[in-house]
């Protein structure tokens, strides 16, 4: 996108994130919370909105919401209540959503995010609890709502507890937005309160984005971007939208307030049909429910039972294992990965950074290719530690180890077994190597002389020759030792 040279344009982004809680039962009834399944098999009078039915709050959903609120450094409301948000939609059985309005459970939080940008503190406006809607299937036309002939409603999802998290407009770029969602996802996952699977809709992100010339005090027209179904698409959609709005601002064709749909394939956003008038939700306290005044002791007991949050895990990993900061970031994107790493590290006596290197540089690649998460690969953490030990002992070379890892990934066998099966024993016999080293010295007299004259960086060249002669099977450390001995001045 072209930008006029002398012009500084600021981007402002606020996020609204919905997290489906992984409780056993729904928010206000005993129906099971589960993904997929035959339509309308997990409904009851309450979540179908049958006349006469009444909601009763799921206590664990409250606890989970308080966990999220506290993890985002929010204050937990001393007095909170549920309200009805009234609007008609066929996927909403009562034609109102039980939500929170005036008094959300959590408010006034902050989340610090880091990345290739100055550390950013993003304000958390509110964290509240509400119920999810059912799902619509649009029949006819392209399958999108706009040109469908009719729709079919399934209420299995209706009434699933949903936490809504709203940020202040503190986010300044698509990169930061991506980092925010990544961090939030890691937090929610660490808390164990949701599956946080964006593709399945258990974590849903909407964004408000606007641009303005630096120095202006008013925000530009707010554009709401919808349909971002992965962290990657949050980045792509907002990058696109940022560029589009910047170009519009520069050309003088000011962006307008609207809702835009992100097209995953095209990587672009396009306007959705806009509402004729602002919704008038007629919020009022739900007379079927009573207020909540969580006691300090209850909140404290929830806090005590909170697992380690990613931010704490990161500083602990730095201190305990001395890992590089960038690697810590990668290893803490999910609790499962961090756990996997820690298990491998504890099965290994040397510097944990070596284990981390293997995970990040090699194992992740294999997992990506296979399209599975680390936790589902056949290699157990202690087996990776075994591989690293095998390299350390000189039994196999680093290069051979990569081959062994491939075998382990395919079979789940131990490293030693695979090395043996594939004949990957490193040449570590000094006697055997000695003659090869002698040959190489004879073939490269100039280089040998340089080493004898004290030019030690030429040793590497000779080591390379030995490795080539042995087809990579020689133990490079042993070769270096032999060369330095033989060519001592």
């Amino acid at each position, binding site marked *: 996108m072209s930008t006029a040279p002398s012009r500084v344009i600021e981007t402002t982004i606020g996020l609204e994130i919905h997290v489906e809680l992984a409780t056993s039962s729904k928010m206000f009834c005993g129906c099971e919370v589960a993904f997929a399944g035959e339509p309308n098999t997990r409904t009851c009078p309450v979540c179908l909105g049958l006349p*006469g039915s*009444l909601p009763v709050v799921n206590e664990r959903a409250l606890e989970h919401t308080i966990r999220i609120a506290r993890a985002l450094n929010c204050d937990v409301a001393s007095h909170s209540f549920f309200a009805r948000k009234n609007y*008609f939609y066929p996927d909403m059985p*009562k034609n109102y959503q039980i939500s929170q309005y005036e008094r959300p459970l959590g408010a006034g939080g902050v989340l610090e995010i880091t990345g290739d940008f100055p550390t950013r503190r993003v304000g958390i406006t509110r964290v509240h609890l509400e119920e999810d809607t059912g799902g619509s299937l649009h029949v006819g036309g392209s399958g999108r709502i706009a040109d469908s002939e009719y729709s079919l*409603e399934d209420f299995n999802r209706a009434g699933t507890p949903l936490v809504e998290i709203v940020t202040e407009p503190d986010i300044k770029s698509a990169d930061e937005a991506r980092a925010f969602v990544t961090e939030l996802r890691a937090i929610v996952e660490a808390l164990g309160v949701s599956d946080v699977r964006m593709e399945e809709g258990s974590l849903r992100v909407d964004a408000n984005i606007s641009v303005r010339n630096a120095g202006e005090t008013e925000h530009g027209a707010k554009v709401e971007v919808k349909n971002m179904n992965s962290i990657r698409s949050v980045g792509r959609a907002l990058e696109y939208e940022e560029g589009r709005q910047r170009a519009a601002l520069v050309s003088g064709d000011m962006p307008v307030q609207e809702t835009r749909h992100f097209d995953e394939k095209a990587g672009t956003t396009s306007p959705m049909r806009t509402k004729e008038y602002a919704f008038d939700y*007629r919020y*009022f306290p739900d007379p079927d429910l009573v207020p909540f005044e969580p006691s300090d002791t209850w909140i404290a007991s929830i806090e005590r039972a909170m697992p380690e949050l990613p931010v704490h895990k990161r500083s602990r990993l730095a201190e305990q294992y001395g890992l590089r900061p960038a690697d810590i970031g990668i290893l803490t994107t999910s609790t499962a990965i961090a756990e996997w790493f820690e298990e491998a590290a504890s099965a290994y006596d040397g510097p944990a950074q070596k284990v981390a290197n293997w995970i990040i540089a090699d194992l992740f690649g294999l997992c990506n290719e296979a399209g599975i998460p680390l936790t589902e690969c056949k290699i157990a953490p202690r087996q990776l530690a075994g591989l690293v030990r095998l390299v350390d002992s000189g039994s196999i070379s680093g290069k051979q180890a990569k081959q062994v890892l491939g075998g382990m990934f395919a079979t789940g066998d131990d490293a030693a077994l695979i090395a043996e099966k594939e004949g990957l024993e490193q040449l570590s016999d000094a006697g055997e190597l000695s003659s090869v080293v002698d040959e190489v010295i004879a073939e490269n007299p100039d280089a040998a002389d340089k080493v004898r004259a004290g030019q030690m960086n030429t040793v590497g060249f000779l080591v390379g020759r030995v490795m080539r002669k042995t087809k990579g099977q020689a133990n490079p450390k042993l070769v270096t030792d032999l060369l330095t001995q033989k060519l001592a001045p």
Partner: protein
Amino acid sequence: MTAGSGPPSGDGLVWRTATELARLLASGELSSVELTGALIERSDAVDPGINAYLHRTDELALEAAGAADARRSRGEAASPFDGVPVAYKDIFVTRGVPTTCGSKILEGWVPPYDATVVERCHGAGLPMLGKTNLDQFAMGSSTENSGFFPSRNPWDTGRVPGGSSGGSAAAVAAGAVPWAWGTDTGGSVRQPGGLCGLVGAKPTYGRISRYGMIAFASSLDQASPLTRSVEDAAALMAIAAGHDPCDSTSIPSPAENYLDGIDGGIEGLRFGIIKEFTGEGSQPGVRARVDDAYTRLEKLGGTLQEVSMPSFQHGIPAYYLIAPAEASSNLARFDGVRYGSRVAGDTNIVTMNSMTRDEGFGAEVKRRIMIGTYALSAGFYDAYYGKAQRVRTLIIQDLRRAYESVDLIVCPTSPTTAFKLGERTDDPLAMYLSDVYTVPFNLSGNPAVSVPCGLSSDDGLPVGLQIVAKTLDEKTMFRAAYAFEKDLGFAGSPEGRPRL
């Protein structure tokens, strides 16, 4: 009033109270099947004239009666009232039995579950005789707003039985069922009780579960019995009262036995008479009867004193904002998607919803939905709904203050006796104003009972006295009503029943 000797039958039987019938069933003088049969016969005879029922369940009732008799013969009665039939206002959801709430919009709906009240009455062995008529969604004071037909007052079939629980009141008053359930949101049980010469008793809000009771105004609705005696009202209330985990607003303490000490008399009880209820606009015959009642209370050893309730003048405005506001949201679910009727089903969702609701709801329902939607809409919330919720606080405070110096409050149930069908249908506001004596106690949640205090001298129709107790003090309320009823001798006497 005594059980009499020899097996009672026919006419005598249908006028008995539930308590008397329970004794006959317990002694084996009467079987539930006989009783149920007699009531079915009575219903066949009188219902065409009063239109009390929307749906009769004769077969189910006889079946349940047979089961009750079998239990009794094994000595395993489910409760002291095992086998005494009951009817439900068609606002209570009944599994496998059509439930319409008096509205065309729910025609054809067969609920897959029972209301808690129904479940508890089934548990006590009460055969269900049917579902009674009501003003659509309980919105009205005459049953003329039923989506099907108006019910008629057994005392004068040219007049309304009151409402919204008019079908239940008409059925009990006509001898078609010994007792019945209604619901009281702004007086909907006390007022028809008063107009039909019956006892109508509203418990403390939260005392009886609202689960399965189709909501009109959630913060006001309470299930309430309509009976021929105070004792019956206390007994039926006790069957359903008590905590229900399915209703978040259900009071968690166990219910008391309201019959315990009901005959303790009223010597020394202090009765408050509301200064602001001057009787202006009341029918002279009603005022005379109520004044007599006050005198009788004094004669029985009670004392009278004036209490001031300045907030009560705002009761009607507050009620007619809060109830429609809650109703507008509660009734949003009737949209033609999941149950009930549907109109214009092949257009688009907005047209389908709007046409279904326009055709399915009656005028009064639409009027209240409109008022409520308006009162909650952006910009008006604070001025209307917010204000009304604050008036509610004032009403509660006034009552709390009054109860520092009195034990009970007494006032008329309604300003008039039963009015003629069609007399007030053109003026909704006038209809609303007739709830002036009942709505404050829905706003405050206090228990209140209407007990017959004789017939008005100007038209010979029944008049009700309202007795209001402190929150959760149903026992004192029933005790006073019982003493009054006994002393008056109206209930159970030939004068106390309509010539139908």
